[in-house]
């Protein structure tokens, strides 16, 4: 559905995007995960045709020019900035964006109702956007992006600065759209979001693509070992037979197969008073790939 081939973009001395390539299948939710300044927004802007790449190619739904009207009709985007009119009501904002995508009359009214209901803003539809909370503005940003029912949706950091309630509402929205078959490209620097929502994740940093796989695949490949920490009921008779390090009754084991390790310990007749397994996550993947944390 989306193809990015060796995209490059430079702003003055800064190489914002440096040869990024990926493909996104129809109905897939694809995450671009990276810290601020990694090149995620620049990549999205090239994909939607707002920026012309210095090199490389973009194909959206078989159309090679993302500025072509046919490609644009099928694209929806919720920009990172709240790209809304603060002196228009929620309904007027959504209706305006529906109109510029060619919706008219009853069809427009029906889609506006749906978008406002979808983002849980129906009861505030007549209120001006400037009276909304940060989370409501984010949801309205999303409503304006989906009112014309796009087949491809670009969500650029859609949860920045929102309250947990609105964040969950946005997650629900994305999962619903995903269930309906919408192809979604989602950028974030929150690894929990990518882990929860994305079928595959591309990790980007300093304009380059570091790794691309499913979340499990990335963790398996780059996450490192799981950490098992346990407190034993009684000291084992033969500590040397145990994996990891034993300090009194406290056991600490790093392993790439935590379940197998636990099975081996319990098979030896040892019982735990407490047990904790820390599996590696995308944060660990990023740390291992770059030597830095995502939020550094």
């Amino acid at each position: 559905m989306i193809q990015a081939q060796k995209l490059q973009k430079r702003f003055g001395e800064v190489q914002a995007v440096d040869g990024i390539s990926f493909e996104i299948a129809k109905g897939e939710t694809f995450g671009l995960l990276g810290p601020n300044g990694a090149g995620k927004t620049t990549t999205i802007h090239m994909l939607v045709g707002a920026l012309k790449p210095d090199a490389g190619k973009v194909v959206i739904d078989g159309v090679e020019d993302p500025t072509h009207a046919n490609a644009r009709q099928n694209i929806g985007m919720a920009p990172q900035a709240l790209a809304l009119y603060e002196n228009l009501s929620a309904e007027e904002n959504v209706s305006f964006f529906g109109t510029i995508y060619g919706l008219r009359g009853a069809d427009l009214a029906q889609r506006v109702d749906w978008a406002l209901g979808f983002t849980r803003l129906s009861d505030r539809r007549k209120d001006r956007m400037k009276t909304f909370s940060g989370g409501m503005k984010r949801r309205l940003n999303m409503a304006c992006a989906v009112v014309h029912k796009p087949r491809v949706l670009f969500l650029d950091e859609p949860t920045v600065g929102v309250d947990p309630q609105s964040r969950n509402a946005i997650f629900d929205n994305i999962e619903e759209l995903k269930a309906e078959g919408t192809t979604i490209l989602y950028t974030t620097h929150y690894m929990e979001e990518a882990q929860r929502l994305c079928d595959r994740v591309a990790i980007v940093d300093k304009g380059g693509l570091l790794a691309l796989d499913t979340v499990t695949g990335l963790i398996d490949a780059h996450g490192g070992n799981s950490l098992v920490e346990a407190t034993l009921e009684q000291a084992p008779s033969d500590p040397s037979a145990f994996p990891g390090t034993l300090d009194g009754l406290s056991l600490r084991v790093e392993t790439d197969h935590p379940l197998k390790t636990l099975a081996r310990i319990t098979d030896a007749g040892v019982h735990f008073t407490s047990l904790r397994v820390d599996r590696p996550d995308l944060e660990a993947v990023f740390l291992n790939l770059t030597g830095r944390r995502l939020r550094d």
Partner: protein
Amino acid sequence: MHRIVAIALKDLRLLIRNREALFWVLAFPLMMAVLFGAIFSGMGSKARKPMEVAIVDEDQSEASKAFVGRLKSQDSVKLVVKSREGGLAAVRTGKLVAYVLIRKGYGAKQGFMAGDNKKLEVGIDPSRRTERGFLQGILMKAVFGGLQDRMSNPAKTRKFIQESVSGLGAAGARDPEEAKLATFLKAFDSYLGSVDNQTFKGQMKMDGPKIEAVKYAGGKRPRTSFEVSFPQSVVWGLLGIVSSFAILVARERTVGTLLRLRISPLTWTHILGGKALASFMASIVTMALIFALGIVGFGLRLGNLPQLGLAVVCTAVCITGMMMLIATFGKTEQAVSGASWAVMMPLAMFGGGMIPLVSMPSWMQTASHFSPIKWAVYSFEGAIWRDFTLAEMALPCGLLVIIGVATFALGVVLLSRAKS
């Protein structure tokens, strides 16, 4: 077209909901129109208040009193009797426009004018340059009034002539010039002796030429000062429109809605066309509203309605083009706002939006030809009270359209470059 209209309606809605912008677009121009209209009309009786002048009569002769009487009889001047110091102080402090001092000896030397005018002293407030000319005229009338009085009384004049002839010395001792003057005076004396007292009464007027306002072909001229101030003040509303819409374009960029519009199926033509349509419609509605209020509340005439419509449309084209160009003068709302006023204020100032063109020095009047504001005001006046023909409307209207199209094209090119 539907999409262009959608963008235009959205922008108009945003303008209407922006109270600050509405103030500059509608309320401020109306205030200016009413204020300047009232000032130009002189606020009723105050405008017709005569010039207040101090009179200091140190001579107290029959001739000086007659001179003061002739001054008093003129309704364009009000005399305030003062001492020499009081008169000077009143002018110095700006309480009175001028003082007229009649020095001692004025009435002692009797001439044709019935007084020695070298004994008259006039001082005027340096800031009242306009009144200086008026006062000079008033004084000349009073001075020549003395001659009129003399001629109205031939017996008295003959006595003065005979005294003058005897003052020239004995007939044999005169030089050639004195001899010629004596011959003339004797002939004049002889003539005055042959007429009766009624000959010059009511016939010898010293009023000078009578000045009347020029009547135009259709007999039209501004009926009230509001017919001058409303066309002039409409300009302020148009400046508000230029600024408001240029800021809206900048805001689309800074807020990110322009990105949203650009990645939609809209073309650049749709986006800029919508903005232009909104500015054009707002300009027309603003002008229509201000003129309508002028008609309803301040006696403004419609003049030639089709030509006024033409002037309004051409001005709207010009304003739309200028808005589009000024929108490129900065990347942020603050920058565009500053640029719009920095550009438009001088244009308004030179174009007669602040000071009527006729009150400007000649170099400013020449400079005004380069301001589209001048041509806008000129076209409104042409339609409302100057009684322009369609051919005469062609110059201001044509210039407005040319400026509008040129600035629009330049603005579109610059905005397109900024986009890419």
